[in-house]
C-alpha cells in the first residue's frame, strides 16, 4: 500500500490526467446512455481526433523546447492542398505525393526554425506570420476551390482498416490476434525492465503489485481492441499513431537529442554553457513540427476526401490545448508525449461526448475553454504544493 501511495505521488501529473480522462469517459458514457463506448463511436473517436493527436506530438516537443507554433493549422492546410494538386490534378502516384508532401513540411519547418533559432525572432511572431502566410498560400494554390476526390489508396490512410484474412464478419479476428500479440510483447518488455532494474539493484515494485499493474495494462489493451474488433477492427490511422507515439516517447525519454530539447526549454543559457547546440536543437524541433503538420494535413485531406482552403482552421489551438492539458509548461522544459496524447483525448472525448448528448457548439467551446483553464490551474497548484 505504501508503495502504491508513493508511486502515485511521484507520478501525480500523469496519473492525474489519466484518472481525469477515465472520469470524463465514465461521465459521458452515463450521460449518453452508453453510446460513447459503442464500437462504432470509439472507432469514430479515433478517426476524428487522429490529426489533432499527430499535431499534439509535434507541438509538445515545440513547447518543451520553450517555443510555440501557431502555424500548424495553416501548414496542414497548405500541404493538404499541394498533395491534392499532385494527386488529383497531376495524377502523381500516392506514395510519391506523400513523400513530397512530408518533405515540403520539413522545408516549411526549417524556414520557421531558421527565423526562430538563428535570427532570434520569438516563435510566437514567426509562426503567427506563418499562420497568415500559409493560409494565404493555401487559398492561392487552390484558387479558392476544393480539390477532390483523392485516389482510394490515399483515402485508406485515414478511413481504411486493417484487413482481416481470418475473419468471419462477426468479429475482426486479426485485430484480436494483434491485441494478444501486443500483450505478450508488453509482458515481456515489463519483465525485461524489471530484470535489468534488479540487476542494477534498484528498487522495484513488489511482485504482486507488478503483476497487478501488468495485468491491468493487458486488460485495458485487450478490452479496447475487442471493442474495435466488434466494428471494423483496427483503423490504419491507429497503427500510424501507435508507432508515432512509440517513436517519440523513445526519442524524448531515451535519446541525447531528447534530453537536449528538455534542457533547452528548461534553461537555455545553462544548456548552451553545457555544450548543447541550442540553435540547432530549436531548428530540429521546428523541422519535426513541419513534418508532423504535413502528415496531419494529409490525414485530414484523406479523411475529407478533399483539399479545401478552410482545412485546419483552429487545429493549432487544439494541439496547444492538448499539450497544456497534458502537463506541458508554458515556460518550457516540462511535458511528455504521452501527456499530450492524453490531453488530446480529453479534448476529443469531450467534443464527442458533448455532441452525443446534444450540446450545441456554443456550450462545447465554453466548456472546453473552462477545462483547459482548470487543468492547467490544477497542474500549477500541484507544482506549487510540491516545492
Amino acid at each position: 500500500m505504501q508503495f502504491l501511495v508513493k508511486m502515485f505521488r511521484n507520478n501525480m501529473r500523469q496519473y492525474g490526467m489519466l484518472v481525469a480522462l477515465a472520469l470524463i469517459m465514465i461521465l459521458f458514457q452515463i450521460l449518453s446512455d452508453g453510446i460513447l463506448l459503442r464500437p462504432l463511436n470509439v472507432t469514430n473517436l479515433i478517426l476524428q481526433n487522429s490529426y489533432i493527436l499527430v499535431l499534439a506530438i509535434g507541438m509538445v516537443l515545440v513547447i518543451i523546447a520553450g517555443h510555440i507554433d501557431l502555424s500548424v493549422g495553416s501548414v496542414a492546410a497548405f500541404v493538404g492542398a499541394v498533395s491534392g494538386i499532385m494527386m488529383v490534378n497531376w495524377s502523381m502516384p500516392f506514395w510519391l505525393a506523400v513523400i513530397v508532401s512530408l518533405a515540403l513540411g520539413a522545408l516549411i519547418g526549417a524556414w520557421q526554425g531558421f527565423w526562430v533559432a538563428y535570427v532570434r525572432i520569438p516563435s510566437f511572431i514567426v509562426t503567427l506570420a506563418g499562420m497568415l502566410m500559409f493560409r494565404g498560400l493555401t487559398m492561392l494554390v487552390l484558387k479558392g476551390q476544393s480539390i477532390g476526390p483523392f485516389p482510394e489508396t490515399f483515402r485508406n490512410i485515414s478511413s481504411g482498416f486493417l484487413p482481416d484474412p481470418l475473419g468471419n464478419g462477426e468479429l475482426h479476428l486479426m485485430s484480436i490476434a494483434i491485441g494478444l500479440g501486443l500483450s505478450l510483447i508488453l509482458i515481456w518488455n515489463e519483465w525485461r525492465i524489471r530484470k535489468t532494474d534488479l540487476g542494477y539493484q534498484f528498487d522495484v515494485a513488489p511482485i504482486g503489485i507488478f503483476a497487478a499493474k501488468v495485468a491491468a495494462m493487458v486488460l485495458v489493451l485487450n478490452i479496447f481492441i475487442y471493442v474495435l474488433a466488434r466494428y471494423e477492427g483496427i483503423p490504419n490511422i491507429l497503427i500510424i499513431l501507435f508507432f508515432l507515439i512509440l517513436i517519440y516517447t523513445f526519442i524524448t525519454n531515451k535519446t541525447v537529442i531528447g534530453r537536449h530539447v528538455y534542457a533547452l526549454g528548461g534553461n537555455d543559457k545553462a544548456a548552451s554553457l553545457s555544450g548543447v547546440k541550442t540553435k540547432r536543437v530549436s531548428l530540429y524541433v521546428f523541422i519535426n513540427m513541419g513534418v508532423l503538420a504535413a502528415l496531419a494535413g494529409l490525414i485530414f485531406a484523406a479523411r475529407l476526401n478533399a483539399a479545401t482552403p478552410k482545412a485546419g482552421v483552429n487545429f493549432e489551438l487544439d494541439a496547444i490545448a492538448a499539450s497544456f492539458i497534458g502537463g506541458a509548461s508554458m515556460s518550457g522544459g516540462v511535458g511528455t508525449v504521452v501527456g499530450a496524447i492524453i490531453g488530446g483525448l480529453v479534448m476529443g472525448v469531450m467534443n464527442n461526448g458533448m455532441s452525443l448528448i446534444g450540446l450545441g457548439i456554443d456550450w462545447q467551446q465554453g466548456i472546453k475553454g473552462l477545462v483547459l483553464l482548470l487543468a492547467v490551474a490544477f497542474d500549477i497548484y500541484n507544482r506549487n504544493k510540491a516545492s
Partner: protein
Amino acid sequence: MTDIILEMRGITKTFPGVRALDNVNLKVREGEIHALMGENGAGKSTLMKVLSGVYPHGSYEGKILFKGQECQFRDIKQSEQLGIVIIHQELALSPYLSIAENIFLGNEKSRYGIVNWSDMIVGTRELLRTVGLQEAPNTPAGQLGVGKQQLVEIAKALSKKVKLLILDEPTAALNEDDSENLLQVLKEFKKRGLTSILISHKLSEITRVADSITILRDGKTIETLDVGRDKVTEDRIIKGMVGRDMTHRFPHREPNIGETLFEIKNWSVYHPQYQERKVIDGANLSIRRGEIVGIAGLMGAGRTELAMSVFGKAYGKRISGSLHKNGKEITLPSISAAIEHGIAYVTEDRKTYGLILIDNIKRNVTLSKLGKIARRSVINDNHEVVEVENFRKKMNIKTPTILQKTMNLSGGNQQKVVLSKWIFTDPDILILDEPTRGIDVGAKYEIYTIIHQLAAEGKGILLISSELPEVIGMCDRIYVMSEGVITGEIAHEDASQEKLMKLMTRMEASEDAISR
C-alpha cells in the same frame, strides 16, 4: 559638531544559513559624503537594502533612526517619502522611455490621472541643469551613455525631494571622465547640504571625496574613520577591509605540480554589444598540472569574461590570441569543442547559468556529456543512475534521491551538483568561477576538499574568486586583474591581501608586477 541625520544601530540580518549582517552600526552626519567600504560580500548592499526598506521592518533586528525618529519601513515607497533614495549598481532606467518620463516614473505630474507634459518637461529641464546634463528631456534614456544615465538617476532622486542619497558603486561602469564628473556633482550637492552615502571599491575616489568612511567586513562594522581627523591613507583602508585573521578555513594540501598544461597567450576580447570596448586586453596566463591558479579582481575586472571567452567563445566578440594545451595550440570555436578538449567551466551564477532548476539531479549531472552514458545516441538509463549515484556518494550531495529537482536543493548542494556535472565530463582543466559564493562555511570546506582532490589527480584548476582569503588560502599562484588587464602575478608564498588589493585597484599594469 553637525547633527546626525541617520543612525543605524545594532542591525542584524540573517538569511538561511548565512548571517549577512552582524550587529552593524552606522552613523551619518548631515551634509557629509559618507563612504561605505568593504570587500564583495561584506554586507554593504544588504545594509543599504535594510535602510531603504527592500528588506522590510521585522525581517532584521536593530533600529534605524532618521533625523532622530525611529523608522519602520515596510517598503521602498515609505523610505522614499522620507527622502531616502537609493541608486542601484544596475541602473533602473527604462531604456525606451524619455528622460522626463524616467525621472517622474511612478510620480508623474498629473491632474485627474491626466499627465501634464509641459510641467514635466519644465521640471526635467531644471533638474537636468542641477546635475549638469545637457540633453533634451524627451531623449530616450537608452540612447544615453552609462555616465549620463547615472546623472539621470540622480536627477530622478532629486525629483523625489531627496534628503539622503545612497549610491551603490556609481562609478563601477564609468570611464574616468564620467566618474570625475559624477564626483564633482556629488561635491556640489554637498555644498547645498545634501547628505550622501557612497559605496565604492575605488580607493582613490573615496579618499578624495569622502568626509568619513565606515568599513564593513564579514557583516560586521570594523571602524568609522573621520577623514578630517584620522590620518586616512589607502593602505589604512585596505587593512581595515581585509583584516588580519586567517584561521584554518582551508584543508591542508601538499601541492604536487607538474609540467605546463594550459596556456592563454595574448588574449584580447571585445564587448559583444559595445564593440569598440575592449573587455580583456592582452592577457597571458598559464596553468600547470596539479596546480590551483587563482584570479583575483574586483567586480567588473573581466575575470568571468576572460574565462567565458576561453570556454568556446561563450562571451565576447573579435577574440584574438591563442590557447595551448600540452604545448600544442588548440582552437575552441564552440562550447562542445571546449568540452571535447577537456575544459570545464563551472559558472558563476549557478541558478542562471549552471543548472536547469526544473530538472532533477540526474539529468543535470549528465547533460554536458550524455555521450558517456549513451550508445549511438540512445541513453542507458540504468547506467546513468549508477554513475550519478556514485557522484552523490563521492560528493556527499545531501538529498533523498537523485530524482530530486535541483531547485529544491540548498546552495551548497546545488554547487556540488554543478561540480559533479563538470567532473563527469572528465576534464583536464577546470575553471571554477566563484565556486563558494552564497554557501555556508561547512559546504565551503567540502568544496575546497573536492578542489584539492581534483588538483591531486593532476588536473589544472583555475579558481576565480572575489574572496581574497579564499584565493590566498587555496591557490599556488594568483593572477590579479583590473579593468581587463592582468596587473600582476603573485606566488602563494608572497601573497597578502594588501598586495592583492593594491593590484586589484590599480588602473595600469605596472612593470614590477608583471616581471617575475
